[in-house]
């Protein structure tokens, strides 16, 4: 066996000392600091054709129904069978709570509704274009940061930071006002969003952490389609269209997220799982990763509220 020969030869070479380490020539090394595949990525959900190749099973409702009829499993539809065709019943109370915060007047009688219409009428469709460049703040912002800034600057509420319960339920509420709209984050036109996308793509493929994983290590084939213990990761195409997502009553230790996982929480969750240092929600690098993920869902309809796991066990009967 080839590998074993290499192993034996190595023993001889390294016999001098217990450990020898070397830095490969710069260009050569840099190539491997990233998980392979960056160059194949495009900012559209159909980009998955060059990765998992399952896109044709989940590209629209008819395809998902056909795939289900053929008996394909959730991972062969990138989990869109229940993320897209079924809404989460458990998440409705969370949306109600978000709506309450939205309409809740401050001491001066103002609320989010004062600017955005009762129940957020004027925010319909907006979330499908987030993250975007905010000229007032001079940077690209994600939903939770926009909410934090509005609360502080227009309502004088200091406590609705990105990692708080009111922020997360509001984020889900606002996102749900875009249910059914196609994700459209313009990362083609030159400007801050395109720059964020490019940085985010690099970060997503960059190896980090104690395990030396990239996000892409798990979220591209052959890991996609295989088992990590009991779980199967999804491809990064289209996932962001379901975020924020309802999570069962379990959150990161110490956080009160009201069972809502914003995309920022999800990135942190995966970082923890992969023994990477967790980023701060709303920081530039964390926003960059979100821009990359959201733009990878371009062209796919938002579906909110959905939930993390499939409650239906029908597939077991097949």
């Amino acid at each position: 066996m080839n590998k074993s020969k290499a192993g034996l030869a190595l023993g001889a070479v390294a016999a001098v000392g217990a450990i020898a380490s070397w830095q490969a020539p710069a260009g050569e090394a840099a190539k491997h600091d990233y998980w392979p595949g960056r160059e194949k990525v495009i900012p559209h959900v159909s980009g998955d054709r060059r990765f998992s190749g399952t896109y044709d099973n989940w590209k629209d409702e008819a395809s998902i129904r056909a795939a289900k009829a053929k008996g394909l499993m959730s991972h062969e539809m990138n989990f869109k069978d229940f993320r897209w065709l079924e809404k989460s019943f458990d998440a409705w109370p969370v949306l109600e709570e978000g709506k309450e915060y939205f309409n809740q007047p401050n001491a001066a009688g103002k609320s989010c509704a004062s600017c955005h219409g009762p129940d957020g009428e004027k925010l319909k469709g907006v979330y499908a274009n987030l993250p975007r460049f905010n000229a007032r703040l001079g940077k690209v912002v994600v939903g939770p940061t926009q909410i934090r800034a509005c609360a502080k600057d227009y309502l004088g509420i200091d406590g609705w930071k990105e990692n708080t319960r009111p922020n997360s339920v509001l984020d889900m509420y606002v996102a749900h006002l875009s249910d059914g709209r196609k994700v459209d984050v313009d990362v083609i036109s030159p400007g801050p969003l395109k720059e964020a996308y490019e940085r985010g793509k690099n970060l997503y493929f960059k190896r980090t952490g104690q395990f030396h994983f990239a996000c892409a290590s798990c979220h591209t084939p052959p890991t996609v389609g295989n088992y990590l213990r009991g779980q199967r990761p999804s491809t990064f195409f289209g996932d962001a269209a379901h975020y924020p997502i309802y999570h069962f009553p379990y959150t990161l230790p110490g956080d009160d997220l009201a069972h809502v996982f914003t995309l920022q929480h999800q990135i942190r969750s995966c970082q923890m799982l992969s023994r990477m240092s967790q980023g701060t929600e709303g920081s530039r690098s964390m926003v960059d990763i979100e821009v990359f993920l959201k733009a990878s869902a371009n062209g796919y309809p938002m579906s909110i509220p959905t939930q993390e796991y499939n409650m239906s066990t029908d597939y077991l009967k097949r």
Partner: protein
Amino acid sequence: MNLTALRQPGARCLAALVAASVLGLFSPGVFAGSGQEKLQKIRAKWKPGEAMVPEFLTLYPCHEEDQPCGKLPPPAVEKVAFKGPLAGDAARGEKIALDVRWGNCAACHALPGAPGGSVGPSLADYPQRRPPVQYTYQRIWDGRVFNPDAHMPIYGTQGVLTEEEIRDVMAFLYQGKK
């Protein structure tokens, strides 16, 4: 050389390299233990089987580009030589391999006598196949020697496991389960 430049991790590396070659220290082993040094720090506060202490994760490259860890270079590839005999504690090795908060080999591999993930090749038949111990040791320590894009964590180089723990896992792999 000015001090601010020295504070850049890349520069420090370079400075170390220059110093090492000037002193004639440039031989295998110069960087030995960098991962294992991190490990010593970590193990003073973190017990295998418990959740990783977040402060230690900034010892490794991270995503936050404006933080020091965001500027850390990736770890250099480490070649190691296995010094026999294969005398680890197989029972402890099994525990290490199965524990999610320790070695967690089962996340990706089926193991002798235990089911597992399918991301890596099955190791269930390892006791029968018995690849060379040197090969196995290197694979676990730093698999990039065989495949620069290997998915598997680089357990030795990054100080995920101690040398002793890796030997225990190997004893488990070769012994199999009765």
